């Protein structure tokens, strides 16, 4: 019998998100992190030598780096207890009919095939460590758009992957970037050729089913000159009584005149340590738009970064974080203005409830040469009771005096008078609170893809009224 440390987990019944399947796999690595385990993963994936070496080197870096001295407590996370690689007992399929029944059912209940039919130009679905389904519309393939998992990309587009892979987020960046470099598996590779506008979004969904496991998917997106893309990413996991870890890595390359919108909803269960790294490099006149929702997890540390490298490059960040009982969500965004006339617009909201902790941690850096750059940061926090905690930790580092900078932070509690007002119209206390919270997040909800807006509203209902809409 495996001996596991029991973790105390706070969670509400989250309906479909908590559907647990029997863990079946065709390969599963041992717990912990050793060069042997890493070599075995690489061998299992049939990787070229450069990637095996890359993994081993990352592992060395991982062992050398310390945990971040700031932010949430990570002492409970013990990598010796984590299985880093679990290959489900299926291959990557191009038809849902080929996906094993229970896995297909899980994605069905998450609404993925339905969204695919209704509003997506391509879908990737990852289950534990590997992608089990992938599709892309033919007309996009005909225009040269590539959308596949990273494993396939290494085989078929090795030069491109080699040129970009973990150059935006190098393994030495921090301990979990190094961990990712060592054990990454699955994820998405998207390449949009020059001048191609992908009008309909692509979506990848990441589902971690196995207890005591890690998910380390890698997303590499290259949007070439004058091209555009909307990429959506969803993540979830059912609740377990042991620690799970998610340390994905997202690298986005937005070239001259290109634009990329990257929308994510992370709805992990509350036994999850979500230590995800996301970064974009934006060239001249390029635009990156982040829409980021962090709902689940026990602990999140997530600060998508935009490096505005070319003149007039632009970053927009819209974020929403919801921390309930037992959750510590430390989220925000970083922008580096590294060229003249670059601009950034950051707009975040957070909600904390039942002792949850929601912290905005962000940074805006304006380098010496970034004349006439502009940045606006607005953070709003709503605490639903006196047990919960919220704070804003913005770092502003300006090395140029020809800039335009605005920062506004508002932290407040839900208004008792407003609750009374709504209740005096026959609305129950729970529904009144939910209405106020839904109103508070409404400007963000508007930015989310429809199914995620619905998911967010359901979450609010669940948290505040105990019902699933």
């Amino acid at each position: 019998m495996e001996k596991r440390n029991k973790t105390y987990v706070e969670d509400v019944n989250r309906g479909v998100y908590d559907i647990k399947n029997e863990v079946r796999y065709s390969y599963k690595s041992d717990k912990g992190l050793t060069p042997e385990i890493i070599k075995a993963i690489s061998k299992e994936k049939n990787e070229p030598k450069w990637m095996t070496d890359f993994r081993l080197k990352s592992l060395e870096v991982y062992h050398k780096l310390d945990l971040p001295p700031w932010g949430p407590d990570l002492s409970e996370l013990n990598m010796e207890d984590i299985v880093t690689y679990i290959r489900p007992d299926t291959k990557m399929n191009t038809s849902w009919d080929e996906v094993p029944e229970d896995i297909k059912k899980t994605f069905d209940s998450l609404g993925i095939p339905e969204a695919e039919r209704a509003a997506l130009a391509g879908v990737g679905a990852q289950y534990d460590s590997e992608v089990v389904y992938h599709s892309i519309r033919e007309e996009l393939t005909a225009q040269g758009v590539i959308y596949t998992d990273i494993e396939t990309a290494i085989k078929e587009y090795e030069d491109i992957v080699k040129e970009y892979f973990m150059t935006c987020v190098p393994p030495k960046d921090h301990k979990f970037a190094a961990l990712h470099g060592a054990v990454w598996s699955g994820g998405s590779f998207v390449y949009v050729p020059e001048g191609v506008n992908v009008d309909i979004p692509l979506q990848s969904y990441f589902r971690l089913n196995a207890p005591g496991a890690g998910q380390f998917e890698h997303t590499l997106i290259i949007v070439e000159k004058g091209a555009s893309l909307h990429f959506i990413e969803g993540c979830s996991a059912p609740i377990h009584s042991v620690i799970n870890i998610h340390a994905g890595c997202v690298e986005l390359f937005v070239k001259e005149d290109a634009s990329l919108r990257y929308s994510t909803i992370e709805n992990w269960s509350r036994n999850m340590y979500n230590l995800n790294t996301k970064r974009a490099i934006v060239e001249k006149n390029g635009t990156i738009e982040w829409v980021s929702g962090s709902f689940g997890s026990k602990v999140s540390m997530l600060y998508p970064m935009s490096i505005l490298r070319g003149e007039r490059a632009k970053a927009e960040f819209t974020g929403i974080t919801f921390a309930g009982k037992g959750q510590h969500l430390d989220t925000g965004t970083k922008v580096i203005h590294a060229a003249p006339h670059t601009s950034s617009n950051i707009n975040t909201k957070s909600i904390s409830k039942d002792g949850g902790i929601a912290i905005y941690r962000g940074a805006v850096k304006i380098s010496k040469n970034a004349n006439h750059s502009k940045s606006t940061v607005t953070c709003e926090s709503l605490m639903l009771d006196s047990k919960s905690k919220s704070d804003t930790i913005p770092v502003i580092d300006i090395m140029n005096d020809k800039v335009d900078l605005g920062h506004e932070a508002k932290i407040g509690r839900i208004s008792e008078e407003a609750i009374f007002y709504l209740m005096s119209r026959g609305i129950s206390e729970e529904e009144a609170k939910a209405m106020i919270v839904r109103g508070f997040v409404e400007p963000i909800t508007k930015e989310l893809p429809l199914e995620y807006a619905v998911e967010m509203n359901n979450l609010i209902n669940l948290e505040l009224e105990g019902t699933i809409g």
Partner: protein
Amino acid sequence: MSNELLKINNLSAKVEDKEILKGINLEIKKGEIHVIMGPNGAGKSTLASILMSHPNYEITDGEIIYQGEIINNLSPDEKAKKGIFLSFQYPEEVPGLTVESFLRAAKSSVSNEQVRLMEFKKNLKEKMDLLKIGEDYAKRYLNVGFSGGEKKKNEILQMAMLEPTLSILDETDSGLDVDAVKIVSQGVKMLANNSNAFIIITHHKKILDYIKPDFVHVLIDGKIIKTSDASLADEIEIKGYEWLKI
């Protein structure tokens, strides 16, 4: 069935350990309009808040009997469902919640059934027209960016939509210009019938130019010290409140 709607017996109440109401007695029958006047700080708004179960106010003595039932301990939403409505002196702003979706949720809740969308929209438009409220208000966030007058009209719109049995108007007329007071009064007249009643709390006589009350009560220092017909308001207009104090 009895015509008696509300009976307040010896009601005392406090806020943060300060006794504000000191034994109020009041009887209201269906079909009646009551006006409560009094100087600032007399306890008028406290009475309104207590009747709607504001969480900061506490009943220390006496009882509120509504349609034969003691309702001292009912929550605001339970009272609303029983047909009690309070028009707020300072309505709250709720960003992100539109007037329309709020009203539909409220209407569904007080009528205990899901209100059909088309029917609701039609009803809302009619009431908005009557109160001379622009159509775009339905899509605006509740009270956000509304002027004082718009907020008060919005209160009357809510009253018109929810069709309460007992409406309490807490200084709905204060801070309004003559036209707005007219519209608010029209709203009351439009709704008033033999099966409902109104309590109009005011310290101006202006609204009484348009609404004829059955009773005027004077509330001073937490007690109703005089009750008479509409002529009492005229007297107060001329003499103030001093002569009423014992």
